[in-house]
């Protein structure tokens, strides 16, 4: 359907007027909405760990102290949420997945991301590599608030934000793609905002 015109609807032109290009269907927000399917988990850093399990069952673990000891980056990225808001120029600090995956022996094509609280999301392994993804633990220079996924979340800004799993606790590398939490509830397996891949079949 090519878009039914609503007479008298003008919309807000600030988004385009500022020379900002947004993915289709998105609008700009200045604050930072919270979207979570359940209560916010509180995960203490002294018991926190991050585990990568390869398709062969090999495990790689990092404690909070070990994560903090790794070289970090400070990416500034745009966020696009499937619920239609976009937030531009957000500042983070975290460890690149390239650093964590260096030395992990794998030929897997897919990843299932697991979170404290039971959330999961799937994505192609190559989307986590080559400077595209981080385990982020600071936002705007402050420790990441639990509402936004603290102490640490995955950050994959080129996909809709539900792929950037909050309260991340590990990755399971797999040969086959399988749907995670929202993907099983009808959301898209990949989730590219520029191609507006919101739901299954988009």
């Amino acid at each position, binding site marked *: *359907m090519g*878009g*039914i*015109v*609503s*007479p*008298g*609807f*003008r*919309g*807000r*032109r600030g988004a*385009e007027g500022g020379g900002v290009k947004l993915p*289709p*269907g998105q*609008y700009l*927000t200045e*604050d*930072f*909405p*919270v*979207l*979570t*399917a*359940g*209560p*916010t*988990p509180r995960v203490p850093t002294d018991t926190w760990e991050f585990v990568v399990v390869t398709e062969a069952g090999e495990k790689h673990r990092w404690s909070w102290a070990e994560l903090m000891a790794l070289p970090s980056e400070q990416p500034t990225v745009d966020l696009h949420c499937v*619920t*239609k808001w976009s937030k531009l120029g957000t500042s983070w600090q975290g460890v690149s997945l390239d650093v964590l995956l260096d030395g992990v022996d794998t030929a897997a094509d897919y990843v299932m991301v697991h979170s404290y*609280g*039971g959330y999961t999301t799937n994505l192609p392994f190559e989307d986590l590599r080559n400077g595209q993804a981080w385990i982020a633990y600071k936002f705007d220079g402050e420790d990441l*608030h639990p*509402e936004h996924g603290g102490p640490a979340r995955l950050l994959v800004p080129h996909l809709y934000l539900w792929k950037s799993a909050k309260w991340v606790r590990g990755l399971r590398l797999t040969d086959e793609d399988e749907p995670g*939490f*929202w993907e*099983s*509830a*009808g959301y898209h397996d990949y989730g590219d905002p520029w191609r507006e891949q*919101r*739901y*299954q*079949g*988009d």
Partner: protein
Amino acid sequence: MARAAVSGGLNRRLTWHAARLAEVVEETPSARTLVFDVPDWPGHLPGQHVDVRLTAEDGYSTQRSYSIATPADGTRVALTVQRVDDGEVSPYLTETLVPGDVIELRGPVGGWFVWRAADPAPVLLIAGGSGIVPLMAMIRARREAGSRALFRLIYSVRTPEDRFYADELRTRARDDMGLDVGYVYTRQAPEGWPAAPRRLSVADVNNGGWPPDFQPSCFVCGPTAFVETVADILVALGHDPRRVKTERFGPTGS
């Protein structure tokens, strides 16, 4: 009538539907229920939402999500929209759109924040402001399905005038056996109300809800700060976080 085979939007391609406004019900001075006729609507589950797309004459287009206020009913889809004063879409939906106008809807969306009539577990619904909308769909679906699941609603609202569905909830609390309705007023309580206006507290959730060992399904919907507070209270009272489903809207409180 409701189609039994509704999958909750699972793995079915979602397309845009033309939706003609058939009826308007004023709920409060700043909110109204829009009943659309969507000839090819596939049905939905209570708790699901739709995407609304508006397109301007110059081709500019934007989308928002709105909860569905009623259970599946043939080609009818009802949304209750609260006007947000500096909003881009809600002023158009609440003030400009008139019966006969056509907009676009896509859905139903969301297979998680849903209540299924076959589930016998007790249900605790906690609404903040316009967060009542998807919970009202569940209350209406319960009656329609003849479910005897025990329902309790705790509805936090600023003033008596801000209540959605006030008359219907009064009638249902009387006639729908097994449904309790309680209010918490945050700014102004009705004449003779036994409590001063205040924020919803642990005591409200404890007294107006179900004990955790009843293993109720909990649905919490409202502004972000409200939902954060209520979900934390439920977990602190001993509810299994996996049984606490939440929908948040609006900006963060902090």
